[in-house]
């Protein structure tokens, strides 16, 4: 069974629409599927904006991992096969099989370890794919997936130039090459001519910490970051040592994307590489496609509500030309194209 993660850059970027398109196409092709979410999906109205959400339907025979309190939340008849150990605010996770197709409510594992538990228990049940619907802008639980789809669009930014710039950074990071294979260290470290030294922390988050750690560092040969390296911290790293001849390895690309400012990250990457540094990841993430959504909830300060709005679809598509990754407007181009792009390559 392959695990397919659908991550978004923000709320309302089209994760569930993308998920639904894949479920429908799998149905047409009679390919057995399993589905779950790292947040909450399938409810009628958005928990934050109050706007209607796309509903989620599953055909008979599909598998669903959802929280206890969601099992009876839809019109589909679910048979609980097994209760998992993982807990959520809506109860323990349940591995279920759809006995009669219909709408479902889906609250799944909220972290990587619980997702792994779900994957292990689904193995051998017959599903060819597990589709994991993302939540909000959250990506971290999806770091270990076999296929990765990024959903973005006007809900992230209705300024298309900004959206394009941000997406370029995301694609650049998500396509970073794998570093030297065989990295086995359990913690972050720094390798210099004087030898290997543990950093004392797995994540680099603040300038102060970096200044302290890299004070009086000689010529760095390799830095391995097991945890998070934010753009802000990366900038400080650039100031603290000479990148030339140094290989920076981060455990996975998502751990580079968790800071506040993607543009700062882009500048830090440029700075590092322009000055002769190399960068790679220990585990890469196979980004197969970007799906785009023209919808965005527009906050009306007067009246204090969200109004549904859209950017021009063609302009949106044009903004995403030549990114080096297939870009699909799922609603317009259909699930088949998405399937061909994302899944057929796997088989």
């Amino acid at each position, binding site marked *: 069974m392959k695990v397919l993660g659908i991550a978004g850059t923000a709320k309302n970027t089209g994760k569930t629409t993308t998920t639904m398109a894949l479920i429908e196409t799998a149905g047409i092709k009679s390919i057995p599927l399993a589905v779950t979410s790292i*947040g909450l999906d399938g409810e009628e109205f958005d928990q934050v904006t109050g706007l209607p959400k796309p509903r989620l339907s599953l055909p008979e025979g599909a598998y669903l991992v959802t929280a206890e309190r969601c099992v009876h939340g839809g019109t589909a008849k679910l048979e609980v096969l097994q209760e998992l150990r993982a807990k959520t605010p809506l109860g323990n996770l349940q591995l279920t099989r759809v006995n009669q197709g219909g709408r479902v409510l889906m609250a799944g594992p909220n972290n990587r370890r619980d997702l792994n538990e779900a994957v292990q228990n689904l193995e051998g049940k017959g599903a060819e794919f597990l589709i994991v619907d993302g*939540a909000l802008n959250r990506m971290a639980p999806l770091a270990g997936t076999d296929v990765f789809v990024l959903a973005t669009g006007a809900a992230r930014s209705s300024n298309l130039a900004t959206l394009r710039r941000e997406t370029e950074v995301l694609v650049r990071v998500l396509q970073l090459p794998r570093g030297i294979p065989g990295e086995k260290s359990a913690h972050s470290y720094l390798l210099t001519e004087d030898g290997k030294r543990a950093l004392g922390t797995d994540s680099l988050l603040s300038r102060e910490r970096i200044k302290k750690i890299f004070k009086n560092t000689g010529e760095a040969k390799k830095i391995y970051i097991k945890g998070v390296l934010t753009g802000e911290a990366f900038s400080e790293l650039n100031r603290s040592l000479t990148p030339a001849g140094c290989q920076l390895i981060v455990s996975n690309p998502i751990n580079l994307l*968790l800071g506040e400012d993607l543009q700062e990250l882009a500048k830090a990457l440029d700075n590092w590489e322009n000055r002769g540094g190399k960068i790679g990841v220990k585990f890469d993430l196979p980004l197969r496609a970007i799906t785009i959504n023209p919808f965005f909830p527009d906050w009306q300060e007067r009246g204090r509500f969200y109004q549904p709005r859209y950017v021009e679809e063609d302009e949106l598509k044009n903004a995403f030309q030549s990114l080096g990754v297939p870009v699909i407007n799922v609603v317009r181009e259909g699930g088949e194209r998405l399937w061909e792009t994302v899944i057929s390559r796997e088989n």
Partner: protein
Amino acid sequence: MRKKRVLLSPLDPVHDIGLKMIKNALDEAGHTTFLLPPDVTPGEIVEEALDKKAEVILLSRTLGYGVAELLGRFVDLIEGAGIRHQVQLGIGGMAIKPELAAELGFDQGFGPKTPVEEAVAFVEGRNYVPTQEASTKKKGNLLRERTYDYHHEEINSLLEEISEKTLEWYREVDSPGVRRAELREAGSAGGQDYLELSSDSIRDFFKEGILPSGLRLIGEEEQKSLENVIATGRVENPRILQRQPHQPLVFIQYGTGCPFMDIAHIKGTEAWGADGVVHFDPSWGAKTEGLLAGLLSHEENGSVLSEKNLELIKKALEKSTLWQVRAHRGLNTPETVLLAGEAGADLTKINPVYGSLGGGTDPERLLADGLKAMEYAARYNMPFDMPTNEELCGVPAFKAFAGMLIVTQLGLALGAKPVLQPLFCYSPEMMLGGQMEDNYIDYNAAKVMALRGIIDAPIWAGAPIGFLTHTEERVQSAVSTSFHAGMAASLDIEGISIASTDEAYSGGPITLPARIDTLQGTGEAFRFLGSAGMQPTSRAEEWAEELTSNILRVLKEVAKNGSFLDSLYQGILGSKEEGAYPGRNGRRTVQKRR
């Protein structure tokens, strides 16, 4: 239990009081806590969590634009930092629900008014079990410890004299309403004898299966859906509005005609704190001899009285909800009380005075039927309240009270438990007399003080409180109800009925949110006052004395007349000039008992 290391971070600059309370409780329980200043970044929190080796992180944050993404990134940072499975993440704040916590990737969400104990349980990895008081709402006691002792001897002896004579008359008479009730008791409702005593529309139904227009029987599939609505719509923790034992029970009225809608309104109002619900039947029911049968939906206002309809409502009610089926004003009064008793109702409503002077039923008929109904109320142990809504027609309060007190004594003599129902209203009497020119407290307080000075009986102000003070404006309506509720609490009375905020506006159909407005307003009034209260001016006492002496005067007149019934026709308890007209429905149907 192992003590935990807990990091608390108020992401909001202002709203960190909840976290401070939780921190105090955790400190007291021996956990190690670290409270961060407001306005730190997600990155800084994660760094602190790493440094402090936190096992639990509690954040508080009001949701606003972009905040969900901010919190999402925080959860991602925790995962990226490799400590997600070592820390439990909790989020609290306005608008936070378990569903939202799941979407954000937290392990638990705490909404407004979460007990501190619940957050402590989360930290300690325990299931939170609410304390007994918080989780169980008990059915209210409308009677409290009232003794029914009279404090006014002269009034007491006049009432006994009037009551005795009235009961002598009652023992000699009979009516179609009384006889149908007896047939129903014998299991012959809908039979030949019953139909002979019924209106044409009832006969058409039982004989030909023809329903009056606007009515239809609920189909099997609908019935299944209804059962499903009832099974899935339980209210887990009904709100308790009262903060002090002297604060009154709160009643709402339902009667949409549609069983689905009725149940929705009942469940909604139960959840928001209503202590009791009152069944309103259609107005035509008062003019029709006999009751229909089956599960019925009515397309106009008023929910049809039938055994099946009442059974259904009973199933939908929470155990803590008091249920009243009103029966005070029409031709089916005894049967209605009998049905209500059989269906398990807690309370009923009987007042032959209002029902015949303001409700359209002939006084002789309604007196006979009302007394029979009181016998049933006594048998089924259902206290009954006596609305004095003839005051709204223009009858002065003292006359309405004199009538109500006679009915009280009749009820007591028949073994029932009467509940006084003065109106908290801006009635025509006030409009003409100016008693409410300065404030709304004094005259309403005077009513309660006068009644309390006469007899120690339970009082349920109605119906609804603030009648004729409400306008079409919702906030005004809610505030007016809230003030009247506060006044009721200050006067130490047992119950109140409240309107919704759209009743004055719609003049008919009302909505659940508008009901919640006034339930909230009432809860706020109770919270605001606690054991403090509103204070009337000295005018209240003067008016109470005036009311009492006027009541005494009216009762003397009734006694002098020698017949309570004749006094109703003669206008002693409310005259035509004042707006009270003896009703004509059922006139000349009372016979000598066979």
